[in-house]
């Protein structure tokens, strides 16, 4: 099996400060990887550098495209990268408002991504959008409502529907359950697990919530001060952490 994404020695600096540095890993189809670390550890910088939102100062991010095989997305043309961002890649933001068009209806938000890849039949787009609203458990009767009229949890689910409607192969998620009510969080976790399994998605999930990683991600990367300090099977990293920082992180979680 070929890796879907190969990351080689990626670094991003903010002037003299390190954003993240020396990051390398291979992600295979169907794999879900979590990235954990405290605030400022560089996990969001890394995610944004991988997803093309930031330009890394060094390194390669090689994606196995459907048409041309493995291509370095850092050096690829801007239009090609944007096309990737609309088709095979998806990005779920922590704040749904950053990933949605708040003044366009829920159906329109989902339909927009379909139109971006060439769908033109209004009826078909609407049906497709309605189907996806159902999959993320939003009533079809809300299809013409704007996301501003939705609750936070519904907005997040709408953002996920908008991102997954084009059948991406790689999903980047930045704190997908952050800021949500715990009851809504559980629902969203179950939804994401089901979608990952059904669609065979690969995903990279940045979070600071170790319980979320345990349930969603099969493998884990721990970051501190811009460096990767430990990687491995999620269960193993959490149950038997090897690095001093990971041990501190795991032992600092409050018990409910």
């Amino acid at each position: 099996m070929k890796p879907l994404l190969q990351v080689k020695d990626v670094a991003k600096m903010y002037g003299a400060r390190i954003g993240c540095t020396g990051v390398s890993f291979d992600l295979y189809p169907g794999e879900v990887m979590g990235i954990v670390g405290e605030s400022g550890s560089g996990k969001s910088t890394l995610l944004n550098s991988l997803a093309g939102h930031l330009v890394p100062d060094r390194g390669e991010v090689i994606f196995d495209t459907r048409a041309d095989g493995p291509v370095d997305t850092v050096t690829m043309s801007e239009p090609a990268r944007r096309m990737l961002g609309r088709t095979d890649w998806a990005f779920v933001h922590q704040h749904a408002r950053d990933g949605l068009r708040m003044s366009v209806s829920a159906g329109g938000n989902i339909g927009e991504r379909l139109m971006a890849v060439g769908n033109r039949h209004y009826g078909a787009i609407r049906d497709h959008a309605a189907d996806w609203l159902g999959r993320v458990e939003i009533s079809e009767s809300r299809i013409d409502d704007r996301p501003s009229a939705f609750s936070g949890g519904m907005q997040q689910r709408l953002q996920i529907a908008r991102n997954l409607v084009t059948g991406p192969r790689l999903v980047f998620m930045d704190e997908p359950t952050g800021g949500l009510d715990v009851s809504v969080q559980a629902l969203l976790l179950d939804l994401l697990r089901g979608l990952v399994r059904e669609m065979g998605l690969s995903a990279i999930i940045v979070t600071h919530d170790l319980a979320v990683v345990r349930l969603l991600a099969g493998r884990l990367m721990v970051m501190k001060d811009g460096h990767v300090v430990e990687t491995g099977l999620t269960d193993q990293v959490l149950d038997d952490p090897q690095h001093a920082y990971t041990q501190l992180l795991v032992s600092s979680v409050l018990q409910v």
Partner: protein
Amino acid sequence: MIELKNVSKSFTLHNQGSAVIPVMENASLSVKSGECAGLIGASGAGKSTLMRVIYGNYLAASGSVVVGGVDVAKAEPREVLALRRETLGYVSQFLRVVPRVPTLDVVAEPLLAVGTPADQARDKAASLLAQLNIPERLWSLSPTTFSGGEQQRVNIARGFAYEYPALLLDEPTASLDAQNRATVLALIEGAKARGAAIIGIFHDEAARQQVCDRFVDVSGFAPKAAA
């Protein structure tokens, strides 16, 4: 099926003065298909540790842990995950689930993970839950609010839903009444009959005698310095 050679394990506590605690040395063990080996030894002797090393939760410091041809001690995360999906099952003492997911789906999940159609997976889950005397009115509820014994039976149903060729059982009969205990022992014997290799921890002497073909005393794996 399960083959351990010269496995050792120690814990280094970096945040407590880098104390190194050796817990296991030169552990070797081999379990064939259709065989059930019982781990024995006093509390704290390292029975559960050994199981976690085999399941890959704990990283072996040295030696090899080969299950179904995969060396868990050295494999990539995706190889271990594939092994856990298709070959190696683990019934732990604790149930860990996504909150709000119905019991029936929790039990059916291992089957769905290997691509069993949803209705077949649910049928199998339902029959296991019925066998283990979980009332049908509870199946649509999340097991997080169940009693300890019920959670344990849900965990067992989940562990036996898919027919794993290798199984790790950490006290599957603890806190069960006689009838449920008999059901669990029958499930274990069924798994042996279809050729599963099983490593189990049983504190219940009668259960142990009934299903285990032989015993492995883990105190023999204790580090020499500590002994």
